[in-house]
């Protein structure tokens, strides 16, 4: 079939038409391409945005305060809890999230809250506290008594547990209000109005750059800067600029201004700490001023805003002159805009940079405790679970006890500080039975992030270790009792390096044969080493491990006098096993984790394991009670209310470098450490430094719970202190000691009026 040939020659209009078609086609394809590319960028931006800022961080909660009748609680503490949990004090306490208080009577209205094990309904409760005890608790509307009510827990932090990046996320409303204002005044005046890019700004900048012949001015909006930060690419090419502009427009189209501003505040690059990039104002506030962003002053806020333009160029540590000049420009701009008064401006301009000497890292009000939470999450939960978004993490922190602990510590430090400028501190408080960590302080300034001494520091523990030696002995109940005489005498131990180790007592006196209970309560070093060698280092090390110390324990005799280095948390774990009468229960900070759909993650429940006979630990604790009341802790211990059943041990290291106290009552255990980071002498013993803090904490938090009754196989006998034998009225130095039935001495002491009847006595016993 012959084809019809097209005409070879085209008319002019036809050619023109063809060109037009081509042009349209090209335009069509390129606009398709542009749409496609824009759609692609839209995906990229959204993904990045959702993945970064819009990944919902995990919320961390303190323990929920449980309210019930007969519960020990003071009105002050309830108010503290309510205030921290964000309840407003009002005249009637009937609106959601408000309360009313007068003379021990409370009206509290809560919103519904989803706890990990169920929902607490929205309701108003009325409650009365009398004499430090909740005496009435009922539903305010129905007036029905309530047996148990849980308050909404205090939110203690926001974290992204599976992300390695450390960022302190801040919400807009948490920032000093001046900071976002200053940021917009300096970086992007039209932020509230522009669609993502500011054409005028770009033209102005381009003109300025053209005139200067180099880049002197940036026309980037906050949105563009945010995009730039997302993609961590600082090359200045035209294509990148165009990409940036399109993405900025998309971002503005997709998200609200406050969301973008908040993302910016958490994302913007503000400095470098070695190989760690400092992103976000939250982290920058810690990095430069060692404080939470909420507490930034006007001058400090202005400095951070000043740094945005060039964190290296305006580095306040390296370039203080440049930094202060630019900071002052920011302050002057704010003044010119009428945001701050002349006097405010003058004061801020006059203030020094006041940058903290050392960078610190952290988040929230309870940095030390949060450190423990992160550690336990990483240890106990699956990484893939932690990566899911919007987790709600329920912890064991008791904000009231935390506050008590912080105050006790700060108060004592203030008393001691004038002589000891660098004095540092750490404390751990845990609950008996459940072994939940109630409070943790990792620094002398509890709210400022830094080295977490409660968790990360290892220091020699001194005599805190001695209970392990004595427990090893008392566990061999046929061989050792509290009355067994131990030789406290000079010991010379040749060392492998040819030297001779001869430990001395604190008072540099050897005390001769002393009952085991006195050797421990007076913390005699020579008696402890003597006993430890008798028992064998291996068995003492085993005891330590059974108590919950998982550090490797070197086989040197000096270990027994506490050259072993432990963290305060590890010491707490060791004493927890003593406080729980031989039951080892791992200390825990995380109770439960819910995912974004309120489904619990695989939980790790309470665990407990009997490691020692309750009777042996009971005897040991008798010695620790004596140590506090009449032994090394006497100075403070003798003044504690007799109604509290407290026990504990001092720890002091070489030449007074570390001051420790660890001990427990009927409900709580706490460990306090004082020392210098550089291991300098602080001139405080365990009794003069840590013990007063410990006593202040325990005096506040311990209720009057009766001591746990002695195990059934415990009996008591009067013992002569000199001979360790049975005593009666004839003996001057006698004291009543506990024994495991059948291990008590059978003979009377020489001082006893019944001495000669010793044999008869035994016969009599036989017939009993």
């Amino acid at each position: 079939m012959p084809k019809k040939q097209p005409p070879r020659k085209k008319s002019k209009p036809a050619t023109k038409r063809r060109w037009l078609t081509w042009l349209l086609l090209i335009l069509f394809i390129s606009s398709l391409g542009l749409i496609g590319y824009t759609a692609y960028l839209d995906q990229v931006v959204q993904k990045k945005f959702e993945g970064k800022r819009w990944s919902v961080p995990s919320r961390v909660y303190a323990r929920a305060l449980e309210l019930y009748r007969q519960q020990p609680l003071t009105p002050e503490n309830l108010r503290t809890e309510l205030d921290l949990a964000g309840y407003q004090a009002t005249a009637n306490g009937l609106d959601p999230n408000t309360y009313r208080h007068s003379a021990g009577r409370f009206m509290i209205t809560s919103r519904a809250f989803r706890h990990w094990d169920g929902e607490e309904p929205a309701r108003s409760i009325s409650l009365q506290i009398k004499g430090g005890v909740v005496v009435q608790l009922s539903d305010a509307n129905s007036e029905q008594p309530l047996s148990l009510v849980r308050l909404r827990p205090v939110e203690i932090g926001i974290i992204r547990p599976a992300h390695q990046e450390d960022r302190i996320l801040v919400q807009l409303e948490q920032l000093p209000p001046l900071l976002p204002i200053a940021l917009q005044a300096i970086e992007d005046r039209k932020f509230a109005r522009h669609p993502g890019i500011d054409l005028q700004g770009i033209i102005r900048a381009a003109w300025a750059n053209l005139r200067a012949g180099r880049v002197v001015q940036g026309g980037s909006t906050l949105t563009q800067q945010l995009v730039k930060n997302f993609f961590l690419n600082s090359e200045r090419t035209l294509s990148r600029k165009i990409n940036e502009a399109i993405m900025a427009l998309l971002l503005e189209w997709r998200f609200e201004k406050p969301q973008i501003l908040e993302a910016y505040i958490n994302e913007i690059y503000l400095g470098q700490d070695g190989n760690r990039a400092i992103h976000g104002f939250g982290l920058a506030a810690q990095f430069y001023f060692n404080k939470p962003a909420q507490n930034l002053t006007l001058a400090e806020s202005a400095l951070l805003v000043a740094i945005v333009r060039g964190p290296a160029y305006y580095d306040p540590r390296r370039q203080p002159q440049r930094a202060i000049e630019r900071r002052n420009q920011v302050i002057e701009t704010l003044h010119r805009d009428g945001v701050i008064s002349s006097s405010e401006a003058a004061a801020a301009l006059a203030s020094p940079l006041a940058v903290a000497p050392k960078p610190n890292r952290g988040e929230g009000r309870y940095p030390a405790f949060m450190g423990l939470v992160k550690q336990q999450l990483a240890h106990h939960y699956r990484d893939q679970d932690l990566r899911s978004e919007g987790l709600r993490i329920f912890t064991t922190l008791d904000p009231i006890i935390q506050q008590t602990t912080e105050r006790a510590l700060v108060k004592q430090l203030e008393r001691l500080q004038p002589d000891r400028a660098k004095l540092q501190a750490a404390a751990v408080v845990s609950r008996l039975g459940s072994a939940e960590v109630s409070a943790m302080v990792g620094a002398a300034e509890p709210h400022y992030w830094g080295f977490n001494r409660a968790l990360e520091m290892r220091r020699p523990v001194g005599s805190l270790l001695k209970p392990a030696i004595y427990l090893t002995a008392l566990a061999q109940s046929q061989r050792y009792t509290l009355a067994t005489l131990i030789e406290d005498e000079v010991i010379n131990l040749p060392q492998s390096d040819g030297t001779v180790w001869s430990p001395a007592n604190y008072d540099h006196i050897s005390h001769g044969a002393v009952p085991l209970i006195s050797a421990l309560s007076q913390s005699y070093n020579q008696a402890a080493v003597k006993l430890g060698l008798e028992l064998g280092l291996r068995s003492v090390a085993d005891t330590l491990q059974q108590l919950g110390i998982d550090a490797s324990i070197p086989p040197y005799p000096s270990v027994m006098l506490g050259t072993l280095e432990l963290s305060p948390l590890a010491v707490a774990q060791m004493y927890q096993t003593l406080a729980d009468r031989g039951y080892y229960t791992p200390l825990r900070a995380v109770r439960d984790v819910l995912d974004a759909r309120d489904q619990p993650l695989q939980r790790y429940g309470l665990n407990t394991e009997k490691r020692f006979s309750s009777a042996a630990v009971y005897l040991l604790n008798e010695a620790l009670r004596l140590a506090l009341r009449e032994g090394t802790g006497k100075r403070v211990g003798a003044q504690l209310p007799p109604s509290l059943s407290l026990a504990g041990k001092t720890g002091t290291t070489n030449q007074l470098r570390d001051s420790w106290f660890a001990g427990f009552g009927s409900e709580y255990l706490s460990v306090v450490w004082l020392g210098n980071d550089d291991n300098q002498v602080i001139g405080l013993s365990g009794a003069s430094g840590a013990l007063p803090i410990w006593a202040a904490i325990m005096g506040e938090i311990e209720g009057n719970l009766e001591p746990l009754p002695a195990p059934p196989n415990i009996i008591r006998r009067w013992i002569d202190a000199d001979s360790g034998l049975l005593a009666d009225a004839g003996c001057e130095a006698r004291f009543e000691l506990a024994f495991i039935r059948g291990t008590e001495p059978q003979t009377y002491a020489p001082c006893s009026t019944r001495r000669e009847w010793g044999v008869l006595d035994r016969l009599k016993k036989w017939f009993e």
Partner: protein
Amino acid sequence: MMRRYAGILLMLSLAGCSTLPKPTEPQSISAADTLLAQADNKAANGETVQAIAILERAVRLQPRNARAWLRLAELYLTRHEYRKAEQFAGRAVQFAAGDPPLIQRSKALIKQANELQNEPG
């Protein structure tokens, strides 16, 4: 005259006694009892994990509540976690002083858990 007033006062105070609950006695079931009952409900529905979590809450409220420790032990026994059952029953014994039946039940559970632990397979 005085005597009559005294009589009225006495009657009033007696009336008060009969209508008002005594403050020393629990006005309704205790907080821990509430939780124990909740845990029993969950356990009866087969929600053992939830029941355990609620009992842990009871233990937190009253670390010396021997019944809560024993219930935990019983739940672990049903979950064939014998070692845990044994240990938790041990805690029950620790806190059950003055309640011989509870001690007996706890000790029986320890024995049972022990036997089951040592069973081959």
